[in-house]
């Protein structure tokens, strides 16, 4: 094909270029004005005319002040800026301008002014105006959504924070500031693990290190939050990976719930259960205390009489002393049991001694009901990691339930065994048993077959939640009319325990 451009004459060529530039000027989505030194419009592209709803006829040759609203010219000082550009032969860049023409919606422009030089002489200036109305609207929308999301996170009463992959704090919401006492700026200088207890640190590092594997995408852990005052707030955390736009793990999102209130409620519940158990045992306890009291009282009465031999009087004094010791031991057991436990921290617990202590309390009650107790403990101490008072609650509940199932006497068996890595405690009774219809419901809260006033229906559900909290299991087997077996399994703790 013949190339016409090459054959074109000089005149022809400039005409062509003019047409090409006019086309380009009209095609671009920006407004372009050429202004001479007298601030008159020399040329205006289509975009400018359309936006301003003007024609070439009422634009070309007109002064700037006739084309632009005075307000804009004054406010933005455009005339002065154009003059400066022409004088200094230096472009002026990047200003925003809001354009309001009568009958036209508000437009926002980003404008720049370039000097127009012809043969080394500045002849005028080109005013380039880019319509950024839509862009501004969109970025405002984005900012609004961001603000909204931000206020959701900030208003949450749960702790919401994010870290990088190594655990360095990136964001820290208002709840985190309030609970920890650390402002976000200060928290950002720390790792998440700085807010954990020493013993939780290793676990947390594990969680962070495997957060981007599919299997561990959502990990939960109860771990206390260290506050600025060096106190610890119980918090239940959920950790999830923070994904970037290419679905790569960029960090970790941690959402934590303050468990203070929940724990307070649970403590109250446990305490009320203890008192309920004490109420059940009151008769047995009274009987147990009144016997030594009677011995003391009578021995004292013998002493008050004048006729006793010195030997007899010594015997009386000895009985008084022994009786008081016996009474005091019972009271001490009761005190230990009923003392409210505020601690929920786990310690190493010698499970066998704990069960024996609990049995002592229950014995008073079991004796008067003619219940034989058969116990079997392994020789070596059995250690578990747990909250002693809570574990005592579990066994107290199981023992009392077993005893209550045998109102006319029977046998209570307690068998403690080590079974590989776990401790197995079996509580067996020869009582009324549980019907197959009921056995599925016994661990439900408020389920009870006791008559009103005799049971709260919380005993076994509390046992269940406490055992679960200790990462153990509790199961029940029963034959109606023959008795029940409750089996509690808890993970055993090896090494480094008390002996």
């Amino acid at each position, binding site marked *: 094909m013949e190339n016409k451009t090459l054959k074109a004459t000089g005149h022809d060529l400039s005409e062509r270029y003019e047409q090409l530039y006019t086309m380009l000027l009209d095609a671009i989505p920006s407004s372009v004005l050429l202004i001479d030194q007298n601030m008159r419009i020399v040329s205006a592209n289509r975009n400018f005319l359309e936006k301003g709803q003007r024609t070439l006829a009422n634009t070309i040759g007109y002064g700037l002040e006739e084309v632009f609203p005075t307000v804009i010219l004054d406010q933005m000082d455009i005339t002065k800026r154009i003059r400066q550009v022409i004088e200094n032969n230096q472009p002026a860049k990047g200003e925003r301008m809001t354009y309001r023409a009568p009958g036209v919606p508000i437009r926002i422009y980003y404008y720049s002014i370039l000097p127009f030089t012809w043969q080394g002489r500045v002849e005028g200036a080109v005013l380039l105006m880019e319509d950024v109305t839509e862009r501004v609207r969109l970025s405002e929308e984005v900012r609004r959504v961001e603000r909204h999301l931000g206020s959701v996170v900030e208003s949450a009463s749960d702790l919401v924070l994010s870290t990088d992959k190594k655990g360095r704090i990136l964001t820290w919401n208002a709840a985190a500031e309030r609970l920890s006492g650390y402002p976000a700026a200060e928290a950002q200088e720390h790792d998440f693990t700085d807010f954990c207890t020493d013993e939780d640190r290793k676990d947390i590092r594990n969680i962070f290190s495997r957060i981007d594997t599919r299997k561990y995408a959502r990990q939960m852990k109860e771990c206390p939050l260290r506050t600025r005052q060096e106190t610890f707030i119980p918090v239940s955390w959920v950790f999830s990976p923070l994904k970037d736009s290419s679905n790569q793990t960029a960090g970790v999102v941690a959402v934590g719930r303050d468990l203070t209130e929940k724990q307070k409620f649970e403590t109250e519940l446990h305490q009320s259960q203890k008192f309920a158990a004490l109420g059940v045992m009151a008769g047995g306890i009274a009987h147990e*205390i009144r*016997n030594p*009291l*009677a*011995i003391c009282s009578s021995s004292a*009465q013998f002493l008050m009489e004048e006729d006793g031999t010195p030997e007899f009087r010594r015997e009386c004094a000895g009985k008084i002393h022994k009786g008081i010791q016996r009474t005091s031991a019972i009271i001490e057991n009761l005190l230990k049991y009923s003392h409210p436990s505020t601690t929920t921290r786990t310690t190493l617990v010698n499970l066998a001694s704990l069960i024996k202590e609990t049995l002592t309390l229950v014995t008073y009650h079991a004796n008067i009901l003619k219940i034989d107790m058969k116990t079997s403990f392994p020789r070596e101490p059995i250690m578990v990691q747990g909250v002693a008072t809570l574990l005592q609650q579990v066994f107290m509940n199981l023992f009392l339930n077993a005893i209550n199932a045998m109102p006319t006497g029977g046998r209570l068996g307690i068998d403690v065994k080590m079974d590989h890595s776990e401790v197995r405690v079996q509580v067996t009774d020869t009582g009324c048993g549980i019907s197959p219809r009921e056995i599925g419901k016994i661990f439900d809260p408020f389920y009870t077959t006791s008559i009103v006033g005799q049971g709260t229906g919380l005993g076994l559900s509390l046992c269940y939640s406490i055992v679960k909290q200790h990462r153990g299991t509790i199961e029940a087997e029963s034959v109606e009319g023959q008795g029940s077996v409750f089996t509690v399994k808890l993970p055993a703790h090896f090494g480094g325990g008390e002996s």
Partner: protein
Amino acid sequence: MNEKYAPILVVDDEPEMCWILENIIRKTGLACMTALSAREAIALTESNKFGMAFLDAKLPDIDGLELARKLRKTNAHLPIVIVSGYFYQDDPTIERVLQEGLIAAFVGKPFDHDEIVSVITRYARR
């Protein structure tokens, strides 16, 4: 009192309680035999005639009240006194068995020796 009175039976699983009651009874001039369980008590009644019985309410084998019923079967006129720390004076169970005539009196633990002496004076038989 004198030898015309039959010995008194004391049943309590607590040896110390037996010791106390025995001493009080001896001071009144009466004889006394003690048993630590219902089974022992029944064995004693088979070879002895008692003029009165002090029974603990909670015995290791059977309840004091149940023992009372058993003793009553073989000895319709034996005055029985329950001495217990388990029941109290207005206890419905105690009121019922008193009314029923199963027991003659109830003494709560701990007690004044005068209480024991007065029930002996009142109920002990020859």
